[in-house]
């Protein structure tokens, strides 16, 4: 490389730094995407941790309709349904709904429920104090279970939202789940 002008090396180093930086940027997009969605609430992800309910004024002037959709991912054999399809709540009011789940197969399966809210902004105001989606759920072969979910809607919910939908999808995570969950079952 002796025949190159001496500044080639410096330029190459700078360009390689750009390449490495952009490779890192590709991975940085993963947390950036989550932060962006958390802040703006645009992809309907609910908080994965339990909220604590403090007794507060219930805004009886507003009634919000919350609808529930249940589905299972392709390849997940569980039967999964909501006992109540929809409930009416006042903002600030604590409400409990129940879901039924049944493992019709002859093998033990661990499931993980993933919530999604539409319209997405409503997710920021949905506070769950108790949810089966916080943990992986093991079901023995042929076992059934009733899974409760307790929530309240933040009174700050924007006025234009009168109705929102909460969808749960159960995924089969038996292969990747921790053995602790299976042993407990």
């Amino acid at each position, binding site marked *: 490389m002796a*025949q190159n002008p001496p500044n*080639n090396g410096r*330029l*190459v180093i700078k360009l390689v730094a750009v390449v490495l930086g952009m490779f890192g940027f*590709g991975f940085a*997009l993963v947390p950036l995407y989550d932060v962006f969605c958390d802040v703006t609430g645009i992809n309907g992800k609910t908080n*994965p941790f339990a909220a604590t309910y403090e007794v507060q004024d219930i805004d009886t002037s507003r009634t919000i309709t919350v609808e529930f959709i249940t589905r299972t991912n392709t390849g997940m054999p569980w039967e999964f349904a909501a006992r109540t399809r929809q409930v009416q709540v006042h903002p600030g009011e604590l409400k409990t709904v129940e879901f039924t789940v049944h493992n019709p197969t002859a093998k033990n399966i661990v499931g993980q429920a993933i919530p999604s809210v539409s319209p997405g902004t409503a997710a920021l105001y949905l506070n769950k104090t108790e949810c089966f989606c916080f943990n992986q759920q093991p079901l023995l072969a042929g076992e059934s279970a009733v899974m409760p979910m307790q929530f309240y809607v933040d009174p700050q919910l924007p006025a234009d939202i009168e109705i929102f939908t909460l969808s749960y999808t159960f995924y089969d995570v038996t292969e990747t789940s921790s053995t602790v969950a299976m042993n407990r079952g």
Partner: protein
Amino acid sequence: MSTAAEHLHHDEHHDHKPSGIKRWLYTTNHKDIGTLYLWFAFIMFLIGGAMAMVIRAELFQPGLQLVDPNFFNQMTTVHGLIMVFGAVMPAFTGLANWMVPLMIGAPDMALPRMNNWSFWILPFAFLILLSSLFLEGGGPNFGWTFYAPLSTTYSNDSTALFVFSVHIMGISSIMGAINVIVTIFNMRAPGMTWMKMPLFVWTWLITAFLLIAVMPVLAGAVTMVLTDKFFGTSFFDAAGGGDPVLFQHIFWFFGHPEVYIMILPAFGIISQIVPTFSRKPLFGYASMVYATASIALLSFIVWAHHMFTTGMPVAAELFFMFATMLISVPTGVKVFNWVATMWRGAITFEIPMLFSLAFIVLFTIGGFSGLMLAITPVDFQYHDTYFVVAHFHYVLVTGAVFSIMAAVYYWLPKWCGKMYDLGLAKWHFWCSLISVNVLFFPMHFVGLAGMPRRIPDYALQFADFNKWISIGGFAFGLSQLIFLALLIKACRKQGEAATDRVWEGAEGLEWEIPSPAPYHTFETPPVVK
């Protein structure tokens, strides 16, 4: 000064080169490497084209008759990958290798040994990709965009080969891009100031920056697919806390600049050819440079227009819609500048000019259908239909590929020292022009009527149009064999000798050297006034 220059190039100074295969394996000569890239791209163009023939044969009639759907999906996937990464991009890199040093008066590329490496890893990348088709379960079948979870949860184990081949392609084009940038920054002849550089050099410089900015992001995306599939990570797996929509954001953050990587050098080529055959300087040189840079910058903020149907908020859809439409402004500047260059010029219609004129008209059609796709509410109708297929084939086949053919016809006499066979060239142009429109134009209609892309079967009402599309496809495929015959003739040095300037109205340093271009050129830098 001249003795110093001679001394610097002492070890490359002998005129005879190693013979046989060793010449090509060990070469660090920019002309040899350019030739390798161009032939490689042409072979890939024929292989990817053969896959398109399989696709069109299956779609000739409704129903499933020739191949099974899984193989059909592999054909659409690998056709896309080969044409994008194996044909169009290496062809442009080959043209850059051949022409950039000649156009700026440099003796070679700045990093000749890296140049050798960046070419020679490419055949291995495509060997890996193509070999996956013959494995049990077949090759990649999830579309060239490899959306998760298709490429993670639902793909077979050959996905690993796909990932590694994309890694190698990425490394190759990043090294090629670094080489172009360093060459243009450091090796311009005295007097070759930035705003005197030919537009092909300018557009390639900007393309090279796009390449080093987004190819690493693609490498990251395929790496995440690899670890999601084989190592239990959950970047795109909702069950593990990831998000499949995130994949589309990362992919299209790469993918949209990528489409400009495949068209900006084409703009450069057309900007070289149109002035030559109009016998007028390029109209609006500076605005061409700024328009190219604007397109490149805007390309980073429009990616989500590929994702209007993913359930984005309205505000985001509006932003990406308007940002996308904004790109038509600098693109329009270019088209109008080419038209203004031709205005009252003494135009002659040599083959490179014919391809350039076809490019300007047909690329603009592709640009207009792109504008239609940019309109969010109607995109919900067009999304994933043959209208999209028609759009990107107009900009990539009658756009990028036609510009490459124009460039080959334009510079072939300089490379080989012989004029191309005019009869074959005319047949090639007219057959290609007619068949390509029979092939792609009706796709607009079936797309608007709702025919989905990437499906091996279709509803009966699309049968007539698809028959014509397939006939156009076969004709376009066969037309390229005329091109092959012409290229073989030229490489065998058959035909009448070309003059040094080749074209009456040609301007630029590459026309100052003899035809064929000697193995070593500009060892003493030319002085640019």
